[in-house]
């Protein structure tokens, strides 16, 4: 899996917990790195921050979809932007989930593992339809 975030603490937390869950964790500190890694390494899933230097998360998601090598890779947003408009935009871009910071990296690990497992079974669209609460938290800011 790939975690793309310009904040080292977030990358560290993901690495520690997801590795412990048996996943191989790739890291990218901005959008360009993320796109490069996605194309070259073909991860099973991408955790994507929105506010990143150079290329932001929105653009990354768009470009992933445009490229046939990466269009099949499921992705979740992991962000501090907590407005309903952002979440609607994420949904429109085909994200599997929209996880708000702060988040519990310990619980995130099995959730991501399950998503990966189901995607391998070809249930990507089913997850999109189900919109499980674990991937779409409700506590958004009103602003």
């Amino acid at each position, binding site marked *: 899996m790939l975690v793309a975030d*310009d*904040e*080292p*603490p*977030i990358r*560290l*937390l993901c690495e*520690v*917990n997801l590795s*412990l869950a048996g996943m191989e964790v790739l890291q990218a500190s*901005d959008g360009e790195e993320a796109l490069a890694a996605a194309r070259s390494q073909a991860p099973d899933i991408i955790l994507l921050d929105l*506010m*990143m*230097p*150079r290329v*932001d998360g929105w653009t990354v998601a768009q470009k992933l979809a445009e490229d046939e090598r990466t269009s099949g890779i499921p992705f979740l947003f992991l962000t*501090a*932007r*907590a*407005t309903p408009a952002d979440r609607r935009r994420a949904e429109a871009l085909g994200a599997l989930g929209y996880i*708000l*910071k*702060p*988040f*519990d*990296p*310990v619980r995130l690990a099995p959730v991501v593992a399950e998503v990966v497992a189901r995607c391998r079974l070809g249930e990507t669209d089913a997850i999109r339809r189900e919109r499980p609460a674990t991937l779409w938290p409700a506590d958004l*800011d*009103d*602003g």
Partner: protein
Amino acid sequence: MAAAQPGRQKERGTTGNFSSLRRSSTALGWAAAVIGPAIISSLDLLANRPSPRIIGFLLLLAVALAANLGGFWPGLFATLLATVTLDFFYTPPRHDIVPGTGDEFAGVALFFVVAVLISQLFVRRRAVQRESEAATARANRLQRVTARLAEAMTPQAVLDAVVTEGVEAAEARAGAIGLLAADGETVEIVAARGYDSDAFSGWETFPLSSETPMAEAIRDRESFFFDTTAERDARFPSMAGIQGPSHGLAILPLLVEGRAIGGIAFTFRTEVEFDDHRRALKATLAQQAAQALERVRLYQAERALRERMTFLADASELLGSSLDYEATLTQLARLAVPGMATWCAIDIVVPDGSVRRLAVAHEDPARVAWAERLGEEYPPDPDAPMGVHNVLRTQTAEFVPEIPQELLEQAARGDERLLRIVRELGLRSAITVPLVARGRALGAVTLIRDDTAPRYTELDLDLASELARRAAAAIDNATLYREAERRGNASRALAHVDDGVVLLDEEGAVVSINPAAARILSVDESAVVGEDPAATIPSWAAIEQNARPDPGRTRGPVALPLLAEGGGEQWISVSGVAFGDGIVYALRDVTEERLLERDRSDFVATASHELRTPLAAVLGAVKTIRRTDVTIDPEQREALMEMIDREAERLSGIVGQILLAGQLDSGRLHLAVEQFDPVALTRSVVDSAELHLPADIDLRILVPGDVPPVAGDANQLRQVLTNLVDNAVKYSPQGGEVELRLARNGQFARIEVSDNGLGIPGDEHERIFEKFYRLDPGLTRGVNGTGLGLYISKELVERMSGRISVRSELGRGSTFVVEVPLAV
């Protein structure tokens, strides 16, 4: 007519005196006829008897006296008696009825002839005298009638004069006058005298078309003279049932200029032979009565007209005297009583559509109070088929010349007490007129007369209608004036409010625009009024599109961005209200509110984002460290611990900034004023920064000359410099040099912080010091921040009476310049 009832009343007055005088005169005649010759015959007993010539002369004297006093029969009797006396006592042979000689017989016969002639002469003289006396009496009576008629000023006085004097003058037993009513169809007995009190029971009024002598007399303008009851019954068989001794009856029309206004009837005690004299007398009486009645009618009409005109003039003056129409109408009601009405009530329609009794007037104030209480106790039924509500509904006057009992019963609505009260009031005649102005019923005036006053006529209705028209116009004027005044006040008020108001007429042209609206829309009032706003107001299209209401509706308020003068941002809140005569738009400049609102929402978004990231790190690290299901590598554990430390510090810094900004906003932050060395302070800031400086940043400090101590808050200046250094490092993502230079600049110490990082475009130089302002994310390359650092720096420096500014170019780094006043 029941004019032929037997007269049981005694005849009184001069007519009676005449006949008794006449009777006594006749008795005296007889006395003279008997006593005269008797006395003369007794002269025979005297020793010295008078000569026969003297006796003859005396006897002729007695005959003349008897004839003169007693008329024909006493005269004749006296003549015979005198002839016998002369023959018996004074013609030889005396005491023998047969004359002695032919000469003597001739003498007696001559005497007889002379006596007869003298008797006839005096009888005739007496008759002539009688006739002359009667004529004089008739003339006197007629004159009296005329005199009384001339004095009469009211119809009643005329009638009294005609029936009292007239009956006498006509030598009748009783008389009556009937007048044609206003409807022209009914005859009404208005005066009668000499009849039994119940003689006209059921005959007070009767139709003109009826088969009665008076109706016919009026109808055909023809007089009837019936010498006897039989004659009357032959002509009018319907009257045959009326019993009583046969008597004469005269019925004549009362004619004015050939028009019959009524009829007059005279009933006589006995049968009468209506000779020409008598007929002429009756005709004269009728004519006099008719003229007098007409004169009085004209006089009354003229006086009534004058009274009406006076009333109308007074009322008009009153109505024009004040704009307080409620007070005016109350006075108007008082003006109407008692001349125009016994009761006058004025009701008005109040703004909510209900009807309020404004005034009740009556001569007696106690009655007014009583009526007002009654009105409250028994409010009028809005659905009643007659009355004020109906008049207001139909805007048509109600005219009830004679209030029928049924109407009172209907008005009482089955309430016995109310019905009794209403009956006791004796209400006779009523007019209710609406007060209508410009098609709207504003109220109603009700005039009521009781049975002490005459019935209302069409003339009164006309007067009331005219009065109502004027009163309504006065109310309307007062209302319009008040409205105009109110509008005047409103427009004065509008000139001073901060909210903009634009009024459009039905065609969509600007009727008025207040100064606030002109200011908000950046237009000149004079250039806009009377014009199509779309052509004269630049932002009008947007306003119309977003706030133009449908007819009768309200739309908005809605906030709109306008193109402000000078290209700045301007927001207005606009709402439109459509009313009868056009549309009114209310505008408010909400730019301030809008900016504040955006600040708030920016703050929430920024603070939320800025707090979430370090919080996520701290929270995630703690949860990871506390995991018991797996063992965490000690190296990773240490990295997490360090992360908690660093991110908690960052969190604390952000919270500190937010609190500081809040304190600055509310003015709660108090800065110390102390003297300190700016160079030492700057060095300590650089030293602290060195501790966690990225490897690719080269931080230097340059102090080319002496810098004297400054006055201010050392801690806060440290905060400012730390923030500027942090920014310089943050916005140099590719690394580079960060240089601090200190120098004296006049009365200030100048500290410059330069980097060769991303730089700031020229048009952003002002705005970066605004609260929450952040450069376009594309320019910041993902550099985070609360947007408070520079705002806080600027506020702090300015509160130390210093200045802060920036020199920068995109891609070529930035130099922030802080100047702090030197200590004196």
